[in-house]
């Protein structure tokens, strides 16, 4: 059964059509990689799914419920969807542990001790147990991004949205974040990730979607979309990526 179903999404920013009749279906436990040039609509799609942007048309269903209905409480929807940003967006005035336990405590009303135990457990699993009481500005980019992923996971989301989570990282730090995402896939987490890391998309994704001009131009298994694309625009994009040495 489809966990997420987007149909005919349209989003316009100041006369510029960013999403144009976009369809996307994600099954449970599936990992979908969104690829495409900057401005192709990857981030906007993720932000629309998380209701951070208001749609101009189309519908989004999560678990069979239409969440794009304005009568639906967006806060209740966002509790079920985790989101990780390119620039980490950790709260600088809170320690790592407080960053992670904020939503469990305030949104899910869990007891402090319980929320902290869960957070410490998650941190231990990604090798950041020693950083629980540190503040974000004391962590490397890779560590901050891993904390951001843990923060999203602490809500026990049904779906995890990852918006170019390695784009701001030094090359040597990309690996630790990708390893973590690979582990999440092994645990069965459903994920939609916008990425520029083609080899990672090939490795971890069940389905790759190539976005151009706000539409899904080509979609399918990674070996097909990345290996033998049928659409000329996909080929063009991949040729540029290969030229830049990124595949």
């Amino acid at each position: 059964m489809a966990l997420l179903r987007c149909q005919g999404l349209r989003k316009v920013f100041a006369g510029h059509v960013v999403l144009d009749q976009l369809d996307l279906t994600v099954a449970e436990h599936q990992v979908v990689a969104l690829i495409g040039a900057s401005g192709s609509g990857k981030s906007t799609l993720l932000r629309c799914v998380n209701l951070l942007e208001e749609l101009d048309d189309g519908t989004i269903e999560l678990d069979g419920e239409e969440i794009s209905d304005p009568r639906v409480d967006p806060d209740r929807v966002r509790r079920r969807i985790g989101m990780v940003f390119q620039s980490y967006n950790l709260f600088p005035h809170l320690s790592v542990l407080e960053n992670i336990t904020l939503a469990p405590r305030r949104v899910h009303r869990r007891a402090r001790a319980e929320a902290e135990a869960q957070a410490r457990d998650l941190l231990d699993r990604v090798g950041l147990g020693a950083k629980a009481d540190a503040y974000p500005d004391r962590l490397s980019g890779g560590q901050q991004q891993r904390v951001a992923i843990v923060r999203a996971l602490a809500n026990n989301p049904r779906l995890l949205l990852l918006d170019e989570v390695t784009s701001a990282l030094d090359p040597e730090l990309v690996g630790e974040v990708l390893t973590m995402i690979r582990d999440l896939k092994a645990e069965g987490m459903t994920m939609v990730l916008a990425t520029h890391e083609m080899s990672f998309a090939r490795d971890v994704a069940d389905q790759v979607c190539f976005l151009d001009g706000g539409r899904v131009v080509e979609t399918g298994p990674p070996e097909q979309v990345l290996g033998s694309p049928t659409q000329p625009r996909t080929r063009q994009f991949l040729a540029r990526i290969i030229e830049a040495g990124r595949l």
Partner: protein
Amino acid sequence: MTVPPRTISPTAWTPSPAQRERAAYRRRQTVLSVLTAAVSTAAVGTLLVFAVTGAPGWQRVRESFLDPRIARDALPEVLTGLWLNVRLLVCCAAGALLLGLLIAVLRTLRGPVFFPVRALAAGYTYTFRGLPLIIVLYLLTLGVPGLRLQGMPPVLVLGGLALVLTYGGYLAEVFRAGIESVHPSQLAAARSLGLTYRQTMRHVVLPQAVRRVAPPLLNDVVALQKDVGLVSLAGPIDAVRAAQIATAESFNYTPYIVAGVLFVLLAIPLIAVTDQVTLRAARRQSGG
């Protein structure tokens, strides 16, 4: 996912001749700068002392402004007045900070439902930042009691209210600047975790905003410290008014100097705290 420990240890270091030469040069420069500063300060200080004490009217000024006997006599009354200033300052600062924060948050509310609230809050900051404090004081301490309503609070409370209203307007704008300085990505992160607008404000935006604007807020409190004395226009006797009365009794201005010195002494701790907070904020911003 563990990072292997660093195996390269730094090599033993002895400064090179070039580095030793540079260090020696910097030391010489420092000594020279300190000497220059000391000599010029001493010269300017001496000149000032001579210019003032050598002035033709110095004797008279010293007698009418710096009479130790009159200072001693006026001190108790001025101190009593100052105690009123301190109490008023504490209450008015707390009140103005709370009011300012409330108005700033109201002004950030989005959506057509909140238009009247936003408009009212904006109108308030425009009005009370434009209105001279003295006029607000007169309106509240003379005008409002003139209504002869039941249960009218004492004039001191009305005066304090005038101060809270005026300073609340300034502080609201400082708070608003702080709120707007928090990057939208912080809001997006908070909302994506399922926090409501109110929870986002309370746990994510306001803590960062208040930390950032703490120095200008405290600066306004220092200014308020001097302005609380204006309630004496409506009757209550503060330090400056007490000094004025003492001056009228002795035909000597020394009580004003006494009050002035006490005000500065009172401000020093607050200003020191402000500087400390500013310094800490600057360090945080440079990445600590």
